[in-house]
């Protein structure tokens, strides 16, 4: 049965149009239809967070969103963090703090960190660990991830102060 729907949305600031079937998750649409393979499939049932993206600025698991649902909405994936000037401060902080090893969970953790720092610019360690509880990492033991988030928060706040 083919039942393709045309979806118009904004992905990483760019307007996109694509065809998808209702049973295709946003994750499948991003990776298989739009070729944005930065977002990873881990568990495909909402436990691991590897597929985290922002939907209208809100953190979601893209495996639990249907592609057809994003009609008229804005999605940000890991590919949308950096710009032509270079890495996003969150990415830079993870690089400098060794906040990853194999890297598979990293796109999801970067996006979850973006959602956290957009909402809470100065999170406590407990807030960081609680917020990232939906993003599993099997390599780092999380400690360097937490340090990276703290460094990113510090860097972003400094930039805010400079801008102000």
């Amino acid at each position: 049965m083919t039942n393709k729907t045309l979806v118009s949305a904004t992905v990483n600031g760019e307007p996109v149009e694509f065809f998808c079937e209702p049973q295709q998750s946003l994750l499948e649409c991003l990776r298989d239809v739009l070729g944005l393979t930065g977002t990873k499939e881990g568990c495909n049932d909402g436990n691991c967070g590897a597929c985290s993206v922002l939907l209208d600025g809100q953190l979601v698991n893209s495996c639990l969103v249907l592609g057809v649902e994003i009609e008229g909405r804005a999605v940000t994936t890991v590919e949308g963090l950096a710009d032509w000037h270079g890495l996003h401060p969150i990415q830079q902080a993870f690089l400098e703090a060794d906040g990853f090893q194999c890297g598979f969970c990293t796109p999801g953790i970067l996006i979850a960190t973006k959602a956290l720092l957009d909402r809470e610019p100065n999170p406590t360690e407990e807030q960081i660990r609680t917020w990232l509880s939906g993003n599993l990492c099997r390599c780092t033991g999380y400690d360097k991830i937490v340090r990276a988030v703290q460094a990113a928060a510090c860097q972003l706040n400094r930039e805010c102060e400079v801008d102000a």
Partner: protein
Amino acid sequence: MQPFAYQAPTSVGEAVALLADPAHGARPFAGGTDLLVQMRRGLFAPEMLVDVKRIPELNRIAFDPDAGLTVGAAVSCAWLCDHPAVWQHYPGLIDAASIIGGAAIQRRATLGGNLCNAAPSGDAIPAMIVLDATATLAGPDGTRNVPVADFCTAPGKTVLGPGELLISLHFPVPASNTGERTRSGARYLRFIPRGEMDIAVAGAGAWLALGDDGTITNARIALSAVAPTPLWVKEAGAALIGKAPTAEAFAAAATIAQEAARPISDVRGTAAQRRHLVGVLTRRALKGALQRAKGEACDD
């Protein structure tokens, strides 16, 4: 997942018409955090999903000091937890809504979905039962109200009939706002082996109201994950009426709750562990409810 059709109606009438037509084989779809997972596992193969997130009645939070709180069935847990009136007047609801999944799940999961999924371990259900919540349903024959305490009938089974849709959940005015000079508080607690992102081994919700002289004028206790459905233990609450809110009275009520529990042993815990947890969690939830009734912060 198997192919299915997708519809996103903008009115209750359209949604009910889609759901009620047996030719469509349709199911309602809100956050999808249970439904899509169950469909991938092959538990359901609906021929149509009816996305209810564009229907105004299912996507609103309304608080009125004289009428209470109404939460649309498709309101996400994160939306609920960020609502100032819910924080102020229904912290017992926040206890549950803030621990269902992690940050990403909370932006999709709904109170309505937690109720309709009817898992024995659904954290929001005991929290809603002790707050005396009522569910409003719309179906081909009109609307009806059902107490949340009567909504779940078996694991994964509810009172929803063919074509019926959960519209909203209503919570009465907290007693402290009624002018009857009573004060009330609620608390929900669960036990899980890790800090977050897990399913309750056991959970307990408690609500109590205090009279002028500080005695308990009314109380409700409900449990999760220790029976085929979330369990309202009426006799445990009734045992507290007219008593002073002491540790001894709470322990006696907790014992009644333990006796009412019908836990099983499974991968998450043994029946004996669950029965023990019911005692601990009920005592702590009552203590927290008392602290909130007195305007104090909960200390555990």
